[in-house]
């Protein structure tokens, strides 16, 4: 399949998610109208455009895989798409709903549903990359409009966009925000978290909660030790890592370590 650089075709699909990342597109304002001129949108149910089986140049998927139907669907979308892009925390790490993976997922479903045998839900919530090859991952809960437009623009030029993997701390320093951990002893996940949000939380005087996922070469053990030094319990430390991107391996390993310590 050759990508049509003049007016590429685009599909936006939704799996298990909150719709928030699709809003990165629907919130573009006037740029949304420009976007629909630059690319031909073939599938985007929330915007009223339906052609689920269209072969496209660029497919964005929001959401994690949590049902047998989604498992089959993602494979089909892979076959019919030149570039497959995972959009947001659910698609890149399984999302906050992946917390069930570490518990007894079936027990959770059994506790909630009177007739669990009718629930077509897996006991796990997993990222797209567990199921198919992904060309690009856009992390963030939610992704920003800038991430989407920058990606489409780069692909229009025939290249994949360059994604920054610095830590939030870098963006925080550049924004001249005061470090909440140094100045106030407030726990902050910035030292292990991917940049991309613009260090919003520290600029609002609160700690980062890692919604953009693990940064490149993070040192979660050192950060967890620092948290201990701040007087946080093992349970609190565990909850800090096992949050939005709990299923990202770097966070999961350390989060589970502290979670087990709590049980001792």
């Amino acid at each position, binding site marked *: 399949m050759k990508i049509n650089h003049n007016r590429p075709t685009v599909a936006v699909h*939704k*799996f*298990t*998610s*909150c*719709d*928030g990342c*699709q*809003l*990165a597109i*629907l*919130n573009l*304002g*006037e740029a*949304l*109208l420009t976007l*629909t001129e630059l690319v031909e*949108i073939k599938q985007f*149910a*929330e*915007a*009223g*455009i*339906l052609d*689920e089986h269209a072969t496209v140049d660029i497919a964005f998927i929001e959401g994690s895989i*949590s*049902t047998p139907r*989604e498992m089959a669907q993602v494979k089909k979308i892979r076959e019919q798409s030149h570039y497959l892009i995972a959009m947001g925390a659910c698609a890149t790490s399984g*999302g*906050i*709903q992946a*917390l*069930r993976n570490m*518990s007894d997922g079936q027990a*959770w*479903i059994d*506790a*909630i*549903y*009177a*007739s669990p045998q*009718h*629930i*077509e*839900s897996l006991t796990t*919530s997993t990222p797209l990359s567990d199921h198919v090859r992904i060309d690009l991952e856009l992390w963030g*809960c*939610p992704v920003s409009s800038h991430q989407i437009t920058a990606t489409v623009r780069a692909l229009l030029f025939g290249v994949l966009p360059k994604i920054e993997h610095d830590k939030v701390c870098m963006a925080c320093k550049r924004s001249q925000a005061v470090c909440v951990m140094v100045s106030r002893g407030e726990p902050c996940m910035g030292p292990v978290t991917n940049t991309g*949000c613009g260090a*919003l*939380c520290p*600029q*609002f*005087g*609160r700690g980062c*909660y890692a*919604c953009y996922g693990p940064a490149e070469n993070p040192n979660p053990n050192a950060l967890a030790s620092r948290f201990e030094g701040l007087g946080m319990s093992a349970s609190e430390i565990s*909850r800090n890592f096992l*949050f*939005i991107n709990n299923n990202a391996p770097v966070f999961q390993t350390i989060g589970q370590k502290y979670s087990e310590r709590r049980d001792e």
Partner: protein
Amino acid sequence: MSEKTININVPVLARVEGEGALDIRIENGRITQLKLRIFEPPRLFEKFLEGRHYNEVPDIVTRICGICPVAYQMSAVYAFEALFNTQITPWIDMMRRVYYCGEWIESHALHIHLLAAPDFFGFESAPAMAKQFPDEVRRGLQLQGLGNEIIKLFGARSVNPIGVKIGGFHKAPEAETVAVLLHKLRAALPDAKALLEWVTTFDFPERSQDFVSVSLQHPFEYPINMRGTAIRSSAGHKIAINEFEAHFKESQVPHSTALHCHLDGEPYLAGPLARLNLNYNLLHDEVKETLGNIDIAFPSSNPYHNIVARAAEVYYGLLEAVRLLEDYRRPASPAVEVTPIAGTAYGCTEAPRGLLWHRYEIDDSGIITAARLVPPTSQNQARIEADLRLSLEALGLDNDEATLRQHAEQVIRNYDPCISCATHFLDLRVSRR
């Protein structure tokens, strides 16, 4: 007698937030089965809220719905503050109202322009409609953008905003930032008025349906936040927020896969039209004047007027944000101290789509032991199905399938169902064959 059976199946319902589908069976000229099915996989929020600290809740519940995160935050913070006897300052209460107006403007403008209006002109989508109505669509997207800017003022970003905590905000906006935004909001007031006037010119099918409207009610404010409110209905109910579960029951209907919430056994309407029907007098004079010049009387029994109510609330929200920001002063602290108390916390606010009710049980250390969330879409399920039966029969079941399908979709979209949130409540029972 005719044995003819028509099955209309709309596999994916476009232009609703989240994914649902509708099955209708017509036998011998009557609707014998009508199912609004939901495709949304459960995410089990109530389950993983257990074991979390109450401080984490404003950052967890935003993830339930990308379109109304403010509503989820607000129902949660008011719930905990009520349980803890936290006395927030008038500044906090006022600024939360501004913040919430931002979400009403954003969500309603999005729904009117990107999701609902194309139905009234026969377009498949908003981009298609924009070719013929460029100015109207552009105006709508700008209003949506302004709503988002208000949310960002307090929350840094409009989806999953990060500025809210139990007891107030993490940061108070700078006076200069507020002044710049206030200027833009004032400048947009004529646009919001024009939007309302435009929407009232839509061609509404003549419908009169007998339904009960339900909303929060406050003695002197149009209902948004929780303080000082009770749940009221057009049938005369007055229900305290912590008595919700005694009157509102969710139950499974055999032919439906979605839970239906009933008020004392009856379907009811929540959301913009219900709010307007019950609180018309509390609107700003500018909104009432504009509505007074049109041919629609409120309270209205035509569900299609939901879109008019939505446009009226965009105008109201903008006027209200201007009013509350006009004498903005930055306070010494954007939040008050909170001392947790174990017990059951009840919260309810008016999400863009209607009542959003929360209950949390927490222990001595502030950890949540149980949670229940009742979103507006589950409350409107029964009403949507009732409307579908009435509307399709009024349209005439002899119409061809494409016409019936188009009409049914329009009826559903008119309620702005947010299906991604409707599947998050604890007791959803799905049965599939």
